[in-house]
């Protein structure tokens, strides 16, 4: 589904992604974790070309993301992206936010788009907030709307860039619930997250990154019980006591 081959990226002199190789099969849920500055957010952002790469190849569904003459908008319509800071459109209601992509890209007739949007918002538990504006919502609610918005075009793959990192601890649960149900329904997901509980419960694979390199890639069972790389061991010992 998604294939990263020898991906390299520099920010000026800074080599932020070093020969990254990653393969994500359809229906797989992959969690990417690591210390801050490891390049995990940058990595996920290269998949839909929010960040360019200098070397390497990325393909999504067989399509080379950096191919010349590629219609980037068509590609992106097939990839759902959820941001850490939600990025909802504040001048539009919740319903309009979710309808935005179908109305503007697929030219779906308004009533169909509205019906679909209502179904999606029902799925994330926000049917009672259709006409609210993002400014009226809590962080957890906003993120759930953002997920519904990303799902509006029915993309085959969803990318999550630290979806719960900006949330109060009480609201993390409601967002993870939505993500878990998505995983259960067979969505291909790549999540950059610090939520180790989520990783353990739902992911098929955990990928550990540090300083731009993938140091470990294993099933959650193996990763959490016996990490092989010393950096991964250190990371887990630092992060796990606080997550319990």
């Amino acid at each position, binding site marked *: 589904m998604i294939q990263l081959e020898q991906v390299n990226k520099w920010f000026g002199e800074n080599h932020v992604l070093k020969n990254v190789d990653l393969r994500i099969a359809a229906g797989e849920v992959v969690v990417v974790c690591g210390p801050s500055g490891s390049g995990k957010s940058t990595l996920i952002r290269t998949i839909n070309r929010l960040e360019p790469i200098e070397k390497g190849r990325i393909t999504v569904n067989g399509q080379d993301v950096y191919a010349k003459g590629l219609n980037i908008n068509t590609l992106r319509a097939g990839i759902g992206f959820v941001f850490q800071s939600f990025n909802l*459109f504040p001048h539009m209601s919740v319903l309009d936010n979710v309808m935005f992509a179908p109305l503007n890209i697929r030219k779906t007739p308004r009533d169909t788009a509205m019906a679909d949007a209502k179904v999606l918002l029902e799925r994330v538990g926000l049917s009672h907030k259709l006409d609210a504006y993002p400014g009226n919502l809590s962080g957890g609610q906003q993120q759930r709307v953002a997920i519904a918005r990303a799902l509006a075009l029915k993309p085959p793959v969803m990318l999550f860039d630290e979806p719960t990192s900006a949330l109060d601890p009480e609201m993390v649960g409601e967002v993870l619930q939505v993500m878990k149900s998505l995983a259960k329904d067979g969505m291909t997901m790549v999540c950059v997250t610090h939520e180790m509980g989520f990783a353990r419960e739902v992911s098929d694979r955990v990928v550990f990154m540090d300083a731009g390199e993938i140091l470990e890639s294993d099933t959650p069972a193996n990763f959490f019980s016996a990490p092989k790389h010393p950096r991964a061991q250190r990371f887990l010992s630092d992060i796990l006591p606080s997550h319990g």
Partner: protein
Amino acid sequence: MLDIIREYWPLLLVGQYPHGPLGGLAMTLIVAGLGLLLSLPLALMIAIARVSPYRWVARCAAALVHVVRGMPLLMLIFWAYFVVPKVTGHAVSGFTTLVCALVIYESAYLSEVIRSGIEAIPRGQIEASRSLGVGYWRTMFKVVLPQALFNVLPSMTSQFVSTVKETSLGYVISVNELTFAANQVNNLVLTKPLQVFGVLAIIYFIVCFTLSRGVSLLDARVRRTRAMR
């Protein structure tokens, strides 16, 4: 001052009309209104050009803005007064000249205000829209501009108010607007220039204040709808 208003209010309000061309406050409002109506779309185009990813487009627009901002409006009015007839081949009225000069002048300043609004929109908004697969232009018109234009409404109001006051420069090319009318009144009264121009100041103040207040009420209403702080 009340006597002056009571005596000369038709002259101040509509100039010589109906015994002559329209003038006074009515003319001021028409010139200002036309100036704003025409300069807003132009300013929008210039601002969009300035944030364009194509460097030569951005540079041309920047050069235009820098040149116009470097000139006093009065000079622009005189210059238009002589250049426009040369370019179009026949004489143009002071009214047309004033409107042209105002439009050129205002669109440069307004474009900077709009550009600042566009550049202040968080990058995440654009990333969110582009990540959904929405293209550059749709993102600009449906996501960025509605927010940017609303956010800079107070700044734009300042420019609108400025435009209303700038119409008074039409006086030098004999456009029969409010300041011209006030001067005519002064030439009739002769002994009370302070009062006459005091009335003029009050009229300008009422117009400008009404405009500012109206915009701030609109601003408050939209903020309440969007639940913005």
